[in-house]
């Protein structure tokens, strides 16, 4: 009965969201517990933010913004950050990446790393501006910590991208797999011709 209601691709999609949420929570826990206990003198790279960038870049559907809102809610469980700040900042991040990714057609790890660096800076600016608007006691620039974070985000974006790409490949829908197969089948024929 349930199998009639939910198709195989739907099941794949649901499990993909569940697994990626779990990975997101792992990243947050690593950033808040593991990193400060070992390398407390250096601010932790924003693993969660790089994860958000990945979702914005690689998951093409517009309604993924709701998944980002859910991630924003998860962030508030690991931080004092209010929900309004999390959701507004993520909305802006999603909008900016959505605007650029339809204009820059490059899907390499280098492009993702550069985008992570640029978006980390943009996110910091968005957060400071939104804090001035929404919060009674707004945040300050905290330049040194933020600069270190930008650099670390750029560095960790490479392994995160590699890892998430591997993970993402497990949850490809039938349509995506068929598309890939078709491309693979067509290519040698075209070559022979």
């Amino acid at each position: 009965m349930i199998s009639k209601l939910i198709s195989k691709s739907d099941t794949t999609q649901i499990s993909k969201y569940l697994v990626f949420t779990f990975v997101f929570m792992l990243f947050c826990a690593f950033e808040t517990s593991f990193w400060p206990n070992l390398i407390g003198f250096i601010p932790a790279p924003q693993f969660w933010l790089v994860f958000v960038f990945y979702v914005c870049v690689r998951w093409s559907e517009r309604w993924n913004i709701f998944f980002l809102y859910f991630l924003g809610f998860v962030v508030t469980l690991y931080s004092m950050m209010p929900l309004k700040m999390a959701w507004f900042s993520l909305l802006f991040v999603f909008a900016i990446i959505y605007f650029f990714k339809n204009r820059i057609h490059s899907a390499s790890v280098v492009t993702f790393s550069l985008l992570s660096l640029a978006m980390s800076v943009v996110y910091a600016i968005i957060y400071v501006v939104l804090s001035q608007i929404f919060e009674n006691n707004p945040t300050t620039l905290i330049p040194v910590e933020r600069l270190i974070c930008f650099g670390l985000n750029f560095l960790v974006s490479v392994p995160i991208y590699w890892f998430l790409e591997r993970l993402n490949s497990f949850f490809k829908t039938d349509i995506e797999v068929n598309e890939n197969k078709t491309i693979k089948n067509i290519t040698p024929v075209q070559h022979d011709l």
Partner: protein
Amino acid sequence: VNFIFAFEGGAFLNFLNFNFKKGILITLLLALPLFSINMEQKSTQTIWFAQPISFLADTLKSLFASLSNGVRGTTAEYLNLLKIKSENQNLKMQMSLLQARMQVYEENQNEIDRLRTVLDFKASSKMDLIPAQIIGRDLVIDHETITINKGLKHGIKTMQAVISVSGVVGYVFRPEISTSHVMLISDRYSVVDALIHKSRAHGILEGQGKNRGILQYVDRTEDVMVGDLIVTGGIDNIFPKGFPLGIVTNVEKKSKGTSLLINTRPVIDANKIEEVFVISNANQEDFLQKSETTKKE
């Protein structure tokens, strides 16, 4: 001169053919060793003509002797160096081992000291305290919170004070089942009732992020100096009265307004502490009264 005895047949004549030159030479050859026997027996001193040869021989012998000594010395030194090198390596290994042990020993000693202080504090206080360990920090750099390893099942409730041995850390703002989130007094959202220890002037300590705070609503006529201790006011019913909060780092008198602008820093650097106490019941502990009694004594 060859004397040739002629007999019958050429071969016999050849045999008797005597060469005087060869004869003298052979005689000399035989005579010289005989002379040398005579020379050895007669004199213990070097003969004049043997002296330069002897000198040369001695010189060469000395030269080779010193050379061999040199070679032997160098070889011995080289062998010593090799030995020293291996000894040095062994000593270095031993030293690093000892240093590592020393470090562990020092760390253990520090931990013992710290735990002893913590236990002394708990024993001397009449407050009901729940000891906890810090297990996490805030996800974003714009907020200052910590996570402790005690939660609802350990009796932790919202708005309970979190302190360390030497000062206030913050207060619980979100207890979970087995962990709790604590807002530090330096967080931008934190507000604590405070008073200046010296003058008893009341104010509100507001966090500013990054280990900074600002003491507001202190009357501009109050005498506040840099370095003054700020303690808890006790009105908020969260913290016990008179417990250290922060130190004044800067005082400004605004040209307009009735209050002073006082910048502060917390007494406790939350990045450097590992253990904290959650106050489950303050039992009307008053540290101000305590310190005054101690002063009088």
